[in-house]
């Protein structure tokens, strides 16, 4: 092994970074609690943004985000934030929640350098439902950095104003590192 510090880390980027993936800090909750992400949980509050932290260890390009719709209703927004600044790096803008099944939302191709980021999602109603985990307490979510915000609109804000989570609801939200999911 070279003594020279690695400029490019050897970790291969996965196809997606999901909330249950190793890059996600939420992974620890899912892993230790043995919780499962199941279908059918309505979004906990209208126009609430939920921020889920993840780490990037080698530079990656983000192409889209995805989630699984169970009940179609209203609009949503997804995006990525820099945890260090709370600044929004990219977001889709208000997007209709699709029919039941996988929904992917294109983003402007965005390069993420090694660091900690938030995958964010906001929904404008409490009828739409998604695949999510509901067995992890808000306090435990807080202990890995999950945050939320009462946005007042569906469009994700810039910057975010973080608050601690109030409900046991973790959407199965993924960041796609390929243009096809």
């Amino acid at each position, binding site marked *: 092994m070279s003594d020279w*510090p*690695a*400029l490019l*880390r050897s970790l291969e980027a996965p196809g997606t970074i999901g909330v249950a993936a190793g890059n996600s*800090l939420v*992974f*620890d909750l899912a*892993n*230790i*609690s*043995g*919780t499962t992400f199941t279908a059918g949980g309505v979004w906990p509050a209208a126009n609430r943004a939920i921020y889920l*932290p993840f*780490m*990037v*260890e080698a530079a990656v390009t983000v192409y889209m985000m995805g989630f699984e719709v169970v009940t179609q209703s209203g609009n949503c927004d997804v995006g990525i934030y820099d*945890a260090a600044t709370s600044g929004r790096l990219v977001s889709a803008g208000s997007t209709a929640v699709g029919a039941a099944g996988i929904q992917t939302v294109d983003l402007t191709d965005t390069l993420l*350098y*090694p*660091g*900690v980021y938030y995958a964010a999602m906001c929904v404008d109603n409490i009828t739409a439902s998604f695949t999510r985990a509901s*067995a*992890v*307490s808000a*306090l*435990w979510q*807080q*202990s*890995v*950095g999950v*945050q939320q915000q009462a946005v007042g609109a569906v469009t994700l804000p810039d910057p975010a104003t*973080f608050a*601690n989570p109030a409900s046991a609801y973790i959407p199965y939200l993924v960041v796609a590192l390929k243009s096809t999911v």
Partner: protein
Amino acid sequence: MDFPGAPPTPLFIHTFTRWGAVRDVSGIIGSLSPVSLTWPVANTAFYVPIWLQWPYNVERVFWINGSSVTSANTDFGIYNSDGTRIYSTGSIAQVGVSAFQYTIPSPDFILSPGRYYFALACSSITANRGTTGSAAGSTARLRLSGFLQEASALPLPATMTPVAVTNPCMPLCGVTRTTTGF
């Protein structure tokens, strides 16, 4: 970014993350979740193995109080793998039910890559005053995962004199590199 670039580090390191031995216990017993704890023996400290693969800047330390805090004192500490105390909060009265309780080390400090123990001691054995954590599993599983305990250890001693675990107790406690928030 400073050359050659510091590796990214998580917002929190605590006993219930992948860097703590609680994960080993969960892997053995299947699953567990933190709840409001009743401390098994007054003034006993529990030592939870932690390992870090990068330097970590400790700006705050914390535990999560249980659903009752009256007349309960807690001490959180960090020990190196040889059992020497690196930092401790000292005995502090619990404030705020079911809430994070932070202490800011002054000055902040860096934990180098390596193995450590996060320690927590509590004075009260009244129900739900033992912070938040888990009493799941068995003493055998905690022992096989590297947990240790020590009686009469509030405040936490300068050097650990641990014994094998006789009470299954896994407190959720740790550190964060953030100075505010959460």
